[in-house]
């Protein structure tokens, strides 16, 4: 039975998926820019603004649905969670911009990633987590969402391993400072993907769990 609420939910869902794709794009642009020494601040900034607007639109849509239809059970969980997820996607975009900006400001677009394998591994893992979170969202796949927990642990280990490496480095330079900050941003992005995962589990099962 197609309810009036279903029309609104479809619209809301489309908005959230779109936002996820846009956020994913922002991250991949900024990471590529970092690795290849390109200036991506402008394009990422633009995307970040778009993401802010989308957050507001999604919130408004959610409030509209709540006020009009007084949803309960699954419907309420979906709407509630989409608002949270929108915030997390906005954070993806924000950190993406932080990465581009730090790269430009601090390291003057040097290819700071350097020979260190850890940074590359971090980039890989985090990109993987971002796309997993969006896939799990589209399929409302709680199991896939739960696997983010394991990957987050790996990211944490990589992060701390890298910090140790930096701490023992013989020479400190701007490139390394830049890497330090960027690894922190990556770690935060990973955290947010787990929040998205938690929201997905909540939608699918109604359970409130922690994936960290």
């Amino acid at each position, binding site marked *: *039975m197609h*309810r009036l*609420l279903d029309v609104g939910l479809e619209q809301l869902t489309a908005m959230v998926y779109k936002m996820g794709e846009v956020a994913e794009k922002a991250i991949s642009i900024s990471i590529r820019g970092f690795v290849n020494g390109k200036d991506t601040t402008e394009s990422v900034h633009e995307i970040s603004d778009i993401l802010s607007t989308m957050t507001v639109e999604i919130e408004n849509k959610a409030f509209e649905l709540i006020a009009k239809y*007084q*949803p*309960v*059970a*699954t*419907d*309420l*969980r979906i709407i509630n969670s989409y608002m949270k997820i929108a915030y997390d996607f906005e954070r993806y975009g924000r950190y993406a911009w932080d990465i581009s900006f730090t790269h430009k400001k601090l390291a003057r677009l040097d290819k700071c990633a350097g020979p260190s394998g850890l940074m590359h591994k971090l980039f890989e893992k985090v990109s993987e987590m971002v796309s997993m979170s969006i896939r799990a969202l589209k399929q409302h796949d709680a199991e896939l969402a739960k696997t983010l927990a394991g990957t987050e642990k790996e990211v944490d280990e990589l992060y701390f391993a890298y910090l140790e490496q930096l701490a023992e480095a013989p020479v400190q330079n701007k490139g390394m400072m830049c890497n330090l900050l960027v690894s922190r941003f990556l770690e935060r992005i990973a955290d947010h993907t787990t929040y998205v995962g938690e929201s997905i589990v909540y939608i699918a*099962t*109604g359970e409130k769990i922690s994936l960290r």
Partner: protein
Amino acid sequence: MTRKNANIGKDNAEPSSSGVKMQTIDLNAWFGAKQALKDINVSFKTNAVTAIIGPSGCGKSTLIRCLNRMHELVPGSRFSGQVLLDGEDTYAPGVDPVMIRRRVGMVFQKPNPFPTMSIYDNVAAGLKLTGSKKGRDLDKVVRWSLEQATLWDEVKDDLKKAGTSISGGQQQRLCIARAIALQPEVILMDEPCSALDPIATAKIEELIVKLKEEYTVVIVTHNMQQAARVSDFTAFLYLGQLVEYGDTESIFENPRNELTEKYITGKFG
């Protein structure tokens, strides 16, 4: 006319320790050959509001009418099972249904104040005609009941007005005051707001939340959001069977049964 001796008297009932005021055990009810309720096992916690929801014809009204022994007044009706009030079966042989109805009060869907009586007489009617409070200060009790029902301030200047001359929402609160005057232990409400406008409905809902401090309330409603607003526990009935029972928050956030989910999200009926 012989008065049966009630095995259950108000003064010698043990307060229930488990927090359950009323309970049904394997309750079945029929109207002639048609079975309206099938093996209902549900409990109603003390000083809490329990909502009974479900689509039309699912047996909600029949269920609460079994709780105050009004079901048997319908010709051709049948009943089996037990209904416990403070642990004692209200359908045990020798129990006087009239006594049960004084402990379990009821408010109906359409406000029904007694047509020939004033506001004062309506509230006092229960007391006067059951002889329960002979010699008690009727004025005090009437005032207290109307205050409890949050109607006192609106009618205190003219209690001699006809009970039917006030608005629908006020009449419903009058009926609640009338029921409360007998100081029942349980108050049953059969869709009390469906004949009222939104403002009157809001007032009654506030009243219900207040009432649970003193009484155990069971409310039948077809308005999901109302059930979510006022009740602590919810029972979902479908085609005469209890599908799910739980605390209201869980049922409305994450129901265990798929049928419940379908019903409360409006995907059927």
